[in-house]
């Protein structure tokens, strides 16, 4: 019975994506919403991305220095591990997990409220493809802005690590610099960006599905918002395993 329910939900999700990923009714309106969604979902998230990345970068650097650095280890190890953690996992996967909470609940509650107040019905009655009009700009907007958030996150993480060097004097700036530059592989940046594109699609599409298909009132909107965050987080974690193996 549970499998039947999951398959039913997955089928509904695919049908909704089929409707959403179709050609917009009016390109002018699509571009307007696309720009607005990039601002609402991406630009408005820069603050929290910067804040979290800065402190996590600093904390990782301190932890590496205290727990890994020893006389038998190379002097660059703390900087090197900080860079690898930020670039390979934190800025792509963990940051997307955090964003699935902020952005996912935002999308699900917005669309859910539109559904229960009949705004989506109003679009349908007008002959507008409501799924394409509402969901497509969110998916494309988040996919467009996510690589920039990943780059911001990595950069701020490294700046956070330098803060521990210059302000906290935990590590010398020279050691940190040599660690950050040690055995640098450009592919890791691309890997991080590619992963984030998949995660952006998961966050926007799954949250839109839960919001768009709400039935009932405010309680159901709240529940859909929670379900959207939980489901997209789980899917990000699952797909992270496969993507990491595939891209490494």
């Amino acid at each position, binding site marked *: 019975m549970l499998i039947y329910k999951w398959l039913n939900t997955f089928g509904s999700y695919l049908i909704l994506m089929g409707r959403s990923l179709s050609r917009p009714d*009016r390109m002018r309106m699509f571009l307007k919403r696309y720009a607005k969604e990039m601002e609402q979902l991406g630009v408005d998230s820069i603050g929290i991305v910067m804040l979290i990345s800065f402190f996590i970068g600093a904390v990782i650097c301190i932890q590496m220095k205290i727990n890994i650095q020893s006389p038998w280890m190379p002097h660059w190890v703390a900087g090197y591990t900080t860079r690898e953690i930020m670039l390979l996992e934190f800025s792509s996967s963990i940051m997307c997990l955090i964003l699935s909470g902020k952005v996912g609940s935002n999308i699900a509650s917005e669309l859910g409220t539109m559904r229960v*107040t009949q*705004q989506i*019905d*109003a679009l*349908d*009655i*007008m*002959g507008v*493809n409501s799924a394409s009009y509402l969901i497509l700009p969110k998916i494309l907007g988040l996919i467009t802005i996510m690589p920039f958030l990943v780059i911001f996150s990595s950069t701020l993480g490294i700046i956070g690590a330098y803060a521990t060097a210059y302000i906290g004097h935990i590590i010398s700036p020279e050691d940190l610099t040599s660690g950050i530059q040690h055995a640098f592989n450009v592919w890791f940046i691309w890997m991080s960006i590619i992963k984030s594109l998949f995660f952006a699609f998961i966050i926007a599409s799954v949250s839109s599905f839960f919001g768009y298909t709400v039935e009932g009132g405010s309680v159901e909107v709240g529940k859909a918002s929670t379900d959207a965050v939980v489901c997209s987080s789980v899917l990000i974690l699952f797909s992270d395993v496969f993507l990491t193996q595939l891209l490494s």
Partner: protein
Amino acid sequence: MIEVKNLTKSFEDKTVLFNINTVFETGKTNLIIGQSGSGKTVLMKNLIGLFEPTQGEILYDGRDFISMNKKEKAMMRREMGMVFQGAALFDSLTVLENVMFPLDMFSNENYRDRVKKAQDCLARVNLLEAQDKYPSEISGGMQKRAAIARAIVQNPKYLFCDEPNSGLDPKTSLVIDELLSGITHEFGITTIINTHDMNSVMGIGENICFIYKGHKEWQGNKDQVINSNNSKLNDLVFASDLFRKVKEIELEQDKK
């Protein structure tokens, strides 16, 4: 004109509408009345295509709506306007942008013409002064008027209103009724209003379809309501003391 033929609607094993046959006439305010839970809203949702009927036909000036494909239905819907019970204005848009929305989506006119058209509609519903406000900043009655303006901005042939007076005071309800009746006659629209406001029935009911427990129980106009012997209709329309007294006076005057 909208013709409904043998319309039945079931949800899984529960039938809500039973073999409805009725006609909604062009240029008239057609009312669907009935108690809460009688199936009025389900009938309207079938008419506008939000529900798929289990059986039957819906003909818009002879065009079978149910057998149309998705694209044809989308085109057909551009001939419809809808005023929802809660107005359903888009929260993120101003009143003017809400009214302009159908034009932005489907019209090839330039921006200035679209604004002019939307402002004309807002002026028709006396709401021009609120054009820059957001829906949350205006009253329920103003929201309903804005929704009416949005519904008529594309010159629809068919206008649907789901309980347009719910939650409004009697005076504002009267304004909305007069507005809907005025627009119907001015533009020759087929207007269908779903209501259980008896003031609307007696005021603008030119063609009234009474639904009782999913069946079409009675059809007529506001003058025929007074003289009707249908007990179920009388129980609904003359439920209040005021309307009962009005009916008694009317009948006494007829005898004299």
